[in-house]
């Protein structure tokens, strides 16, 4: 047991030092970085464990944002130094990572990307009065932890409503089933929001069934689908588990419409296989083709920096927005004091991000953030329509 704990602690430290080492030279390389001690911001995400593949794209986004911030003069007259800490893809790991960030006396924290990781972090950081901005954690309760907690994405209550409306009004689905990940509060809550809204619209929910986040065999869920024969199946899980479920269901002859939440990501096609996607939709925070000026800039900057012609992972613009918004707030505060940064974040109005315009409400949620629905087609995803709160 001691060995295991020691290994975990080593992994945590290793994750910290590896990325710590990666970011500093980059920050130092920019010609306009202010001299003197840097302003330290922690970025907590999954570098190891089940969420690592899902979270990885955010690292490049953070790297690009830090380079741009430092090239533009840093924050409050200092260079921005990003300290990346591994949350080990677990709630307890996320709590330990947040405690580590507090020990490091960071000015603010960005992360995590999953709600189950962000919630324990929020509790630790609120207690220490350290501002937190989560890029993609959509569980409604997270900013309600306290006044230091913010996010740049929409909430699951809104997302559940959007998917239910799209399913009922646009797809004319009347009988649906929801299969959710029992290890993720996000998944259960989004499923509940979808079910509640579907029932209110007049739809019929033939059943809900959970599965474990680490599952690789979905035969029980597929048997459930065969028994209930729904017109649509809502799977509010993450890329890996949802992808495997859809893939196995399609292979077993389930031809119902599949719908997913923001956590599917466009990369789910790689797990399912484009030939098995069938009629499949998902909701998202963003689409590569949106014409916000900052999105156009980000796509160009990302292409120049990483040589990637097109990125379509929504974690990239949301992480980028979270860091840019934090830098904007620190500059407006003119101070690295936690209370000053928190006040500046709360006062954010009309911040132009790559994912839209961000103004925070009293809870720390963005006001009027749209959700879009896309359909997978021929290995890509086509924007269908957006919904406003």
């Amino acid at each position, binding site marked *: 047991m001691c060995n295991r704990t020691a290994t*975990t602690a080593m992994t945590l430290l290793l994750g910290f030092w590896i990325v710590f080492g990666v970011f500093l030279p980059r920050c130092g390389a920019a010609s306009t970085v202010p001299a003197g001690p840097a302003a330290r911001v922690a970025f907590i995400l999954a570098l190891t464990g089940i969420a690592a593949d899902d979270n990885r794209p955010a690292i490049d986004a953070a790297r690009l944002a830090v380079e741009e911030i430092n090239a533009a003069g840093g924050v409050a007259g200092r260079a921005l130094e990003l300290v990346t800490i591994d949350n080990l893809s677990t709630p307890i790991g996320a709590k330990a990572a947040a405690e580590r960030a507090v020990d490091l006396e960071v000015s603010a924290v960005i992360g995590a990307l999953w709600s189950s990781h962000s919630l324990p972090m929020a509790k630790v950081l609120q207690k220490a009065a350290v501002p937190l901005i989560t890029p993609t954690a959509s569980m409604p309760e997270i900013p309600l932890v306290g006044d230091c907690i913010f996010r740049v994405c929409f909430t699951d209550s809104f997302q559940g409503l959007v998917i239910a409306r799209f399913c009922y009004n646009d797809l004319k689905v009347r009988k649906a089933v929801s299969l959710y990940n029992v*290890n993720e509060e996000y998944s259960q809550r989004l499923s509940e929001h979808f079910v509640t809204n579907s029932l209110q619209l007049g739809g019929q929910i033939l059943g809900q069934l959970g599965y474990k986040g680490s599952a690789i065999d979905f035969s029980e869920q597929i048997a459930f689908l065969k028994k209930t024969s729904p017109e649509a199946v809502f799977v509010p899980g993450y890329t890996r588990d949802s992808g495997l479920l859809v893939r196995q269901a399609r292979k077993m002859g389930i031809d119902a419409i599949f719908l997913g939440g923001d956590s599917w990501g466009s990369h789910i096609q790689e797990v399912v296989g484009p030939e098995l996607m069938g009629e499949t939709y998902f909701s998202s925070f963003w689409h590569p083709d949106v014409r916000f000026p900052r999105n156009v800039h980000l796509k160009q900057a990302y292409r120049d920096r990483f040589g990637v012609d097109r990125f379509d992972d929504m974690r990239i613009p949301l992480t980028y927005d979270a860091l840019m918004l934090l830098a904007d707030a620190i500059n407006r505060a003119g101070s690295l004091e936690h209370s000053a940064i928190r006040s500046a974040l709360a006062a954010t109005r009309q911040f132009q991000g790559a994912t839209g315009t961000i103004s925070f409400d009293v809870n720390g949620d963005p006001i009027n953030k749209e959700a879009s629905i896309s359909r997978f087609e021929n290995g890509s995803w086509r924007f269908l329509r957006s919904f406003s709160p």
Partner: protein
Amino acid sequence: MTHRSIRLDINLAILATCALIALSFSTILIPYTQTRRQVALDRIETLCSAVFQQKREAIANEIFAGQQLALASSMHEIRQVKGVDAVTVFDLQGDLLYSNGDPPSPDIDVAQRERLKNGHLFTRIQIDGRPFAEFTSAIDIIGERVGFLAVRFDLAEEERDAFQTMLFFVSLLGATLLVTSLVLNILPVGVVVRPARLLGDA
């Protein structure tokens, strides 16, 4: 008279031999069954420990994050292991959080929680006359204690196995004694005593 005396001597010798054999059997049988029982308990302890270690991280996070369905699923997976009768999870105060057994393992008192600081406990218990072994451990991860877990293992099969071994040895001893008595009563009389008596009479 002589005949009867020789026969009595033979039977006394048989009884003495039987007593010696029974003693020899006992000296082998008792340590043997004890060793077998201890080996079985060690195997069960190792099994429980391995199952616990395999699920520790998942269960710890499920307790910590309040994921009731996931916790129930993890505990159900442990219960699927052959011989496991109940899995019970307790909070930091040792109070019952969730159990998939009937009855659930009793709450963990302060003294037990103190002992669990030094590692897991493995004890034999009886419930309604049925034998069980109970593995109890604290659930710690990244320096964080989130609760306690008890795995109750049904020892009925092990007890039955030990009883069958004992029965086998006792039957073997009984059969040996019976055969020995018969053979030693019939053979010496027919082969030695009667010819000797006939020879003497002649």
